[in-house]
């Protein structure tokens, strides 16, 4: 077997030159032609999750300080700046809780609800003459929170499939609309009559039923439906 003088590797006997360095067999070393380098564009990727939170915190704090300073500069007291300040605090807490509690959904929902309620309570206090927090915002938010927790609990306890989860979710949305109309009616007219929410609920029921039907269809063995829509 011939050996390439340049690379030192053993070659097949029936070839004319080294496939690595293109040196003809028996001749001295001859390097292969180089292609001009083309340097590609670079963007270094980093894990940006903590950095994004830090940036968000920085800009939130900066915004809050600027707003407070401007308000104080005009009157040595907090007046108009209270609403943007409380909004900034609410937004920051909202992002912070999601960032830290994403793996604990029950706790996340409860704390986000508390955060939202405190925010609305402050808004209610800062906007005089028209009080709506205890009679309107509180019951609506509590209904949303309870329904959300029940849906998560139901899905997790029974290990529901995707489509059954969607069915439960749409059903919960229908129940929310019923509760919403009751709360609105109590707030405005002091009665418990429901009308439009019943129609909406009646429309949602077939959608929820469709998801259950869909799950039953895809459970059928060998179904084309199951193949095409497997999730």
């Amino acid at each position: 077997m011939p050996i390439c003088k340049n690379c030192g590797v053993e070659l097949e006997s029936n070839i004319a030159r080294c496939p690595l360095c293109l040196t003809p067999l028996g001749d001295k070393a001859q390097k292969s032609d180089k292609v001009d380098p083309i340097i590609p564009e670079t963007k270094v990727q980093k894990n940006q999750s903590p950095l994004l939170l830090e940036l968000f915190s920085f800009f939130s704090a900066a915004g809050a300080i600027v707003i407070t300073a401007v308000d104080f500069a005009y009157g040595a007291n907090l007046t108009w700046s209270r609403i943007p300040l409380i909004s900034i605090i609410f937004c920051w807490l909202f992002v912070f809780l999601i960032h830290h509690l994403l793996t604990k959904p029950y706790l996340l929902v409860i704390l986000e609800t508390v955060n939202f309620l405190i925010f609305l309570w402050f808004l209610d206090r800062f906007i005089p003459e028209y009080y709506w927090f205890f009679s309107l915002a509180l019951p609506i938010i509590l209904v949303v929170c309870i329904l959300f927790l029940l849906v998560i609990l139901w899905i997790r306890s029974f290990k529901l499939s995707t489509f059954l989860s969607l069915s439960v979710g749409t059903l919960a949305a229908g129940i929310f609309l019923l509760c919403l109309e009751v709360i609105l009616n109590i707030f405005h007219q002091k009665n418990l009559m429901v009308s439009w929410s019943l129609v909406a609920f009646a429309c949602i029921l077939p959608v929820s039923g469709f998801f259950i039907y869909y799950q039953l269809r895809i459970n059928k063995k060998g179904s084309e439906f199951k193949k095409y829509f497997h999730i």
Partner: protein
Amino acid sequence: MEQNKDWLKLDNAAKIYPATSSRKSPAQFRLAVTLNSPVKLKILQQAWERMLKRCPYFQVYLRRGFFWYYLQRHQDIPPIELMELIPTPTFHMNHKFSHLIRISARESTIALDFSHIITDGNGGMRFLIGLIYEYLRLDGAHINKIETIPYPDDEPSADEFEDGHRKFFPGNLPKPDALPKAYHISDKPFTHKDFKLISGKIQLDDILKISRQNQVSTTEYLSAVYMFSLMQIYKQENREKNPKNTIIRLEVPVNMRKFHPSGTMRNFSLYVSPEIDLKLGDFTFEEILKKVHHSMQIQIDSKELGRQTSRNVGGELNLIVRIIPLFVKDIYLSNLYRRLGENCYSGVLSNLGSISIPDAAKPFIKSFDCILVPNHGMKKSCVVLSFQNELTINFSSVVESTELERLFFTKLVEDGISVSVKEI
């Protein structure tokens, strides 16, 4: 029971391939065996038909569902073709009913081309050994059986169909660290042919000796040689003056069957990623070898690899990801593949290890071969396997320059290893 169904879900690792596979990124490999006598076509046809019926998870074609792709059982057996020395990339997946496995033969060689959608190197090699067994048996030889190989007279078991990643999903774990972009050889891929192949053969004893001297494994040693060669090309390209993408990182597949008791014939591999950062300056070969050894020792660990499984399977199980229609997923997955795959690695080195075949079959077999079809991102790929006392190193490349291969094999020669090289 998966065995009784006429369709299969894609396994977790395969989910990304249909969205990303193209002529530039084929996700395809070839396993070949060369016999000591010319192939008997009629017997091969019989063995092939029996093996494919035995392994129905390979007799499939790809179909689009609404949310995910899936594999539909094929009614036909792919015909035996004349073997091309360089396999044509891509199983035309957009063609309806296109098989994801192909068989070809020439003279004494039988070659199987696999799409990564259906299996990985380990599953493919076990299928090839089963095919050889059946071919030799039908030819009149008495071959003993060895474990883990699918034989046509056995029924397929449920664990051959399983998705190992899903089965051994460790739950939610911290994600693996994000990898910055890696250095890629700057040469432009050629357009006049698909790719070229340079194959080196060395004595297994030689490489084992040098690996033992350095107290590293063969894969670690070869990875270090690969990275050392890439570093020299980086310097030749004068990147120091305009340092971008200074990290040289290899993708080294790990067979997860070593960590989990799975008999799956489908994809069940993950990757470790040894790297050097040239911002820190030049590295000697010994420094690279030390870094590669320690980083692979740390990364080849079931808990560390479990983080990758957790990320991959967790993503697949995410409700939002699942309910997104497939045409949107296609865009997302091809982007993900670029971010987590091609962009992050300078090259790939896959070591299939030592091929075990039944003792009675050894006199009939001359050699084994494997080709990993390269993609246009990394441009070159390297696959290593050994049979008896011969270790084969195949470089496939979509660029004309063979500088990397030259540096790689020259380094082996410098280390006292005798190398025999040929170009295909």
